[in-house]
């Protein structure tokens, strides 16, 4: 201003038609400031992909952030096995963000090239409406973070679950199939064993109930422990020695022709494989040791790993105790006792169920299956009390059902499958599955019961009993003989 009170350069107001006001000021100067700032900042575009990452993000992550541009940044979980997709996903906002437009989260990216990344407190803010909204993420401490989460218990719990999952992903990126997530001691023990299994190429046994996800875990461990090594999958119960040879013929030829070839055989339901086929498999393992590796998936607990079946026969005669509950050949037990991983049933890992369900939900959401981003507390309670006879695979399919049924961000009780939401504990124990029931024996017992009742009603008159039963007298007499044996 000049001394006489007049403006030296009076402002020039230019009227712009609203249509002409579509562009703001140039962003170059802001971009320079952002890059000079020590606070990491990134922007997620309307399509859920990363559209900007500042230089401080590059310093924080220790990588060139251009490689993260246009990668999906949603739900905390990756859409592929690409490690950079895992990093991009870890930069996504927590549950509850879509509703409230603001959220705080301690972001914990997975290790990059084996190097750990320091966790960072981040404030997420949404700009714009749903269709064209962008998310700004700014690293740093903000005083209103506690007040922000204090109001909504459900959202707070969802954020806690996300933190647990991020920690699990960060520490177990190499073996991060969802079934290994969790905070229980069983989950921790399993992950420790899997880390060992993933770091060494050795024979390996998985013991887990049906639906425990052992196949996907075994595949991941194989990829880690023996990358680029061919894997041959064998369905154990369908095999006999000849069929096993035919199935593995190519493998056997390769192993015979080249002394450097290595192959892994993954046998599904190894404990249900006919004992002759198991014997043949153990011979192949001996012949091509150590180049032929066995990964066996078994359904029973490994009780007999410490207590071998019967006596091992020197003459190679196959022997299996008739009352055995697990059908593993002694030689295979010897082989597999090197390293075994027990995958506990979901019913015995109740503490892990919220984390596992959230991890499964993240995966479905990342693949674009629905909008739901968290479970309501009533839905989580129902998942917890349900006994999960189908284990992890049943949980995954239930989450798939729920995310398809839920129209909004939160999955409620009403979105769960009927079997889960209608389950009432204290009635019949749903964990009890009919196991080892002989149909012939059951029919025989039922038949004997009917015959006994009719005989009693007929005053032991066999001709009358035969007439009442609608069978010939001779047939009845044969049945009675069977009963008396």
């Amino acid at each position: 201003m000049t001394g006489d009170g007049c403006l030296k350069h009076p402002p020039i107001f230019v009227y712009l038609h609203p249509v002409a006001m579509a562009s703001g000021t140039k962003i170059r100067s802001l971009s320079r400031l952002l890059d000079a700032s020590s606070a990491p900042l990134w922007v997620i575009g309307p399509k859920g992909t990363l559209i900007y990452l500042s230089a401080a993000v590059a310093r924080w992550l220790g990588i060139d952030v251009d490689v993260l541009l246009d990668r999906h940044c949603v739900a905390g979980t990756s859409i592929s096995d690409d490690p950079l997709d895992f990093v991009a996903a870890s930069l996504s906002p927590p549950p509850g963000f879509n509703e409230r437009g603001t959220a705080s989260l301690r972001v914990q990216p997975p290790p990059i090239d084996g190097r750990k990344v320091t966790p960072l407190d981040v404030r997420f803010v949404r700009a714009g409406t749903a269709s064209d909204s962008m998310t700004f993420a700014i690293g740093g401490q903000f005083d209103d973070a506690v007040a922000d989460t204090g109001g909504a218990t459900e959202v707070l719990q969802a954020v806690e679950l996300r933190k647990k999952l991020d920690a699990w992903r960060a520490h177990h990126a190499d073996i991060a199939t969802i079934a290994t997530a969790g905070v229980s001691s069983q989950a921790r023990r399993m992950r420790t064993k899997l880390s060992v299994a993933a770091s060494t190429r050795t024979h390996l046994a998985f013991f887990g109930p049906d639906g425990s996800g052992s196949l996907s875990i075994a595949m991941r461990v194989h990829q880690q422990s023996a990358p680029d090594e061919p894997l041959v999958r064998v369905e154990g119960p369908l095999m006999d020695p000849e069929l096993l040879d035919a199935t593995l013929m190519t493998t056997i030829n390769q192993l015979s022709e080249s002394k450097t070839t290595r192959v892994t055989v993954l046998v599904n339901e190894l404990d249900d494989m006919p004992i002759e086929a198991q014997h043949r498999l153990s011979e192949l393992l001996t012949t091509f040791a150590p180049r032929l590796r066995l990964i066996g998936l078994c359904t029973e607990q490994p009780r007999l790993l410490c207590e071998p079946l019967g006596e091992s026969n020197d003459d190679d005669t196959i022997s299996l105790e008739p009352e055995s509950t697990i059908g593993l050949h002694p030689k295979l037990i010897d082989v597999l006792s090197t390293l075994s991983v027990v995958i506990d049933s979901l019913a015995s890992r109740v503490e892990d169920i919220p984390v596992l369900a959230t991890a499964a939900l993240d995966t479905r959401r990342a693949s674009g299956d629905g909008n739901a981003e968290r479970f309501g507390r009533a839905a989580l309670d129902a998942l917890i009390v349900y006994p999960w006879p189908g284990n992890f695979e049943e949980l995954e399919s239930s989450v798939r059902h729920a995310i398809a049924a839920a129209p909004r961000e939160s999955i409620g009780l009403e979105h769960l499958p009927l079997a889960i939401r209608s389950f009432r504990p204290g009635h019949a124990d749903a964990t009890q599955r009919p196991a080892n029931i002989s149909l012939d024996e059951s029919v025989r017992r039922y038949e004997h019961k009917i015959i006994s009742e009719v005989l009693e009603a007929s005053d032991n008159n066999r001709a009358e009993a035969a007439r009442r039963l609608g069978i010939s007298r001779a047939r009845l007499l044969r049945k009675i003989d069977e009963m008396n044996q």
Partner: protein
Amino acid sequence: MSGISPLIDPSLIQTWIVCESDQRWMTASRRFATHLVPAPMTVNLVSAEPNLVRRLLIGKRKAVVLWEIDGSCAARMYDLVASTSLGAPGILQIVAANGITPRDQMALTELGVGAIISQPEQLPGLSNLCLRYFK
């Protein structure tokens, strides 16, 4: 009715009282409480109003009381927990509380609470505590 004896020794039936405003913890107790007592013991689950709990504990040497405490009635519930500890010191009290401060947790521990949990999935984690208590 295989495997079920018509006569159950009353000394093997342990009382598990749930004191809450809804059915959440009763449902969880139905699911998990049987796994928290040593075999061959069994659990008699009772849902009770807060002021009836003392009456239900008369004559009981061992029992579990699971209190649900939220912010609206915390002071009254703390009184009930304290009076239960004084009147029936052998009773195992578990508090199910959400959003309870560390200071309140310390106070509850001083009042004689055996465990404080916030979600039903934590109930199976009390197995060691409960099994030792009932043995």
